[in-house]
């Protein structure tokens, strides 16, 4: 049943990319447990505006866990305490009266803070640009049923493709690696018959672009815990295997 709780928030405020940031404490009283976490912040912001203070900048869009726009460190956990749940689908019934909640932006050098809780995640787009596609020009495709894809293969490819690109894996990783994101995107295409033609070039380019922007993966597994889509780190293992193969196969072309 719904109830009202009082909370103390410690929120990261930072005026701009080069400004110095600090934690600011806000009392959030009378919050309904039916509210989502972001609706709680909406309420806090309404009160701030009423008091003449600039509202806390945080990003969100679909608020149903699919667009990947939102993402906060909540008490040190990417997307907060509920497993397999993006920040926008986290509800206040996961918290108790009197709780102190620390709210930070994604913590990673490759995600510079833009303002308060909003960060710049363009480095992830760069990884896709490096090879996260199948090179097929529009209009040149053969009939869709020409190539059968085993159901298990399609389902596993989908499990990888379900990545929403939120960046929680990076925020959760002690090395700030984007390995789970990269592996999910690589394996989505590498598993499918359509993706075979560019498999080795894709793997090498995407993994190395990841390494250029982010830290390296050392198999902590924090990313899997934080992922709102519960994408398994098996995909990282498969990508590592593909990467080693790619280094050999891609070399063959010059040798």
């Amino acid at each position, binding site marked *: 049943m719904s109830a009202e709780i009082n909370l103390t928030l410690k929120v990261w405020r930072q005026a701009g990319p080069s400004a110095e940031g600090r934690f600011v404490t806000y009392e959030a009283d009378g919050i309904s447990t039916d509210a989502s976490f972001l609706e709680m912040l909406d309420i806090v912001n309404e009160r701030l505006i009423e008091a003449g203070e600039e509202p806390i900048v945080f990003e969100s869009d679909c608020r149903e866990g699919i667009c990947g726009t939102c993402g906060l460190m909540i008490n040190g956990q990417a997307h907060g305490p509920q497993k397999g749940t993006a920040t926008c689908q986290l509800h206040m019934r996961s918290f108790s009266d009197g709780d102190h909640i620390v709210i930070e932006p994604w913590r990673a050098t490759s995600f510079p803070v833009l303002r308060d809780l909003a960060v710049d995640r363009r480095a992830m787009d760069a990884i896709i640009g490096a090879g996260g596609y199948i090179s097929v020009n529009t209009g040149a495709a053969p009939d*869709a049923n020409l190539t059968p894809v085993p159901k298990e293969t399609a389902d596993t490819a989908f499990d990888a493709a379900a990545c929403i690109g939120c960046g929680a894996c990076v925020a959760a990783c002690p090395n700030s690696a984007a390995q789970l994101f990269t592996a999910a995107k690589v394996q989505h295409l590498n598993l499918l018959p359509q993706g075979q033609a560019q498999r080795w070039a894709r793997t090498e380019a995407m993994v190395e672009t990841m390494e250029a922007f982010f830290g390296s993966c050392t198999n902590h597994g924090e990313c899997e815990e934080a992922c709102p889509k519960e994408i398994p780190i098996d995909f990282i293992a498969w990508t590592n295997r593909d990467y080693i193969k790619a280094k050999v196969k891609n070399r063959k072309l010059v040798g």
Partner: protein
Amino acid sequence: MLTYHDSHRRAHSIAAQGGINAAKNYQNDGDSVYRLFYDTIKGGDYRAREANVYRLAEVSVDIIDQATAQGVPFAREYGGLLDNRSFGGAQVSRTFYARGQTGQQLLLGAYSALMRQVAAGTVELHTRSEMLELVMHDGRAVGVVTRDLITGEIVSHSAHAVVLATGGYGNVYFLSTNAKMCNVTAAWRAHRKGALFANPCYTQIHPTCIPASDDFQSKLTLMSESLRNDGRIWVPLAHDDGRAPHEIPDADRDYFLERKYPAFGNLVPRDVASRNAKTVVDEGRGVGPLRNGVYLDFSGAMARDGEAVIRAKYGNLFDMYERITGEDPYRVPMRIYPATHYTMGGLWVDYELMSNVPGLFVLGEANFSDHGANRLGASALMQGLADGYFILPYTIGNYLSDFLGDPALGTSEPVFATAEQAVGDEMNRWLSIGGTRSVDHYHRELGKLVWDYIGMARNKAGLEKALSEIPALREDYHRNVRVLGSADTLNQSLEKAGRVADLFELAELMARDALTREESCGGHFREEHQTEEGEAMRDDENFTHVAAWEWNGEGAPQTRHREELEFENVELTQRSYK
């Protein structure tokens, strides 16, 4: 390529759940291009343009080929071929899907193709850039002016043509299934520069959404329509029945859809299901703490098939419901209520998808062309991708060929300076009002008016009321809104201020359009125009036309233009679901 998102991967198409239609006839159940064309015309209640819809049905099959080649992981059968399902009232299985995330996968396919071009250097991305002015020169669209949402920089972009694929205006209701950032601003700013806005009153309300839980509610969440296959919809017979659902015996329940539509029962089309839910809630028979929903009850299906079967079919949806409401739908019936989902109206375009402004092309939900007065399930993705992949590439060349070898207009031309000035002035205006209430406050209030008077059912008195109350609220908004901070930084209140101002103007036009259209059709239901059974009654003699509105300047009502719709291949009939 411009977007106000942080990445092009986040466009709201990502949220589409159900699937995408295509006349592949892979299931050998008699589907054809003609049949998809016919269903779409009929589903739109005979208010769409025949030629456009036929072309849409034709290219639908190419979309599936293209998406599959891109690596979109559509659902497969065990033999490895593509699976289909029947969806949204279609009698054939023509819907391709990727679990409940078809929109996400199709969008990511398009995004990956885009990123390939970016890497190849053929496309330049401008993210977090919001279009705030359409720039015109010699009667043509020659560019846009944007505001960089991080730095506040006002930037001119010059081009031979401008293509808007900027989505619908469902957020005029404040509460909708649309993402929070969806807005009408790009289309509206183009309208203010002369582009006609067509059929704004055609909006679609989806019947199965989770009801609002309180005043702080920020958006409504759609529960897949497929739930109606096994769930039975009911409310108590008595008004203000305070008993828990399991304490209400069958004799005291009203399964209102089964009662009124014995043939289709709980599976009637979206508009019919939505209106009937509204009727019983308005009668005071709504359920839940706010009495604002109807039950969607799976106890019968679970008794018949077992809980495991229901869990296998709908497990993820039940989990989502529980996450949001805190109620376990395996034990307590779900509560659902209709919510705004899609807008069929939009900028008027010709067969080439060009607006009446030369050089301004409009694609997807932002245009008005294919869905008439009501969109069928699984056809939004179809139209968006058809427009972008297979129609615009052919039609825009025709326009561009006139400028072969001509450079685009320089951004140092006075028209750009004027537009930049207008954007700068607008920002300063919002920041200098210094009022007392937030932008969201006004947006919420506007949404209530639009929902009450231009929602699921409309009538003359209500629409006239809307036409007096919306401008009054708008005036208050412009006088009394509080936008804090500055224009040279990431300022979300400032972003929203302009978007809400545009929604105010649109809302008024919606009311006027709805008032003028003296008939009921599809998503536009005028209470004065219904059959004895309470169904939508069209007036084909007087309203078989598109209403396209022309901007006449601030404070002056728009002029209504008509495009007559001619049906050469389809006979106009009354929809019946009894």
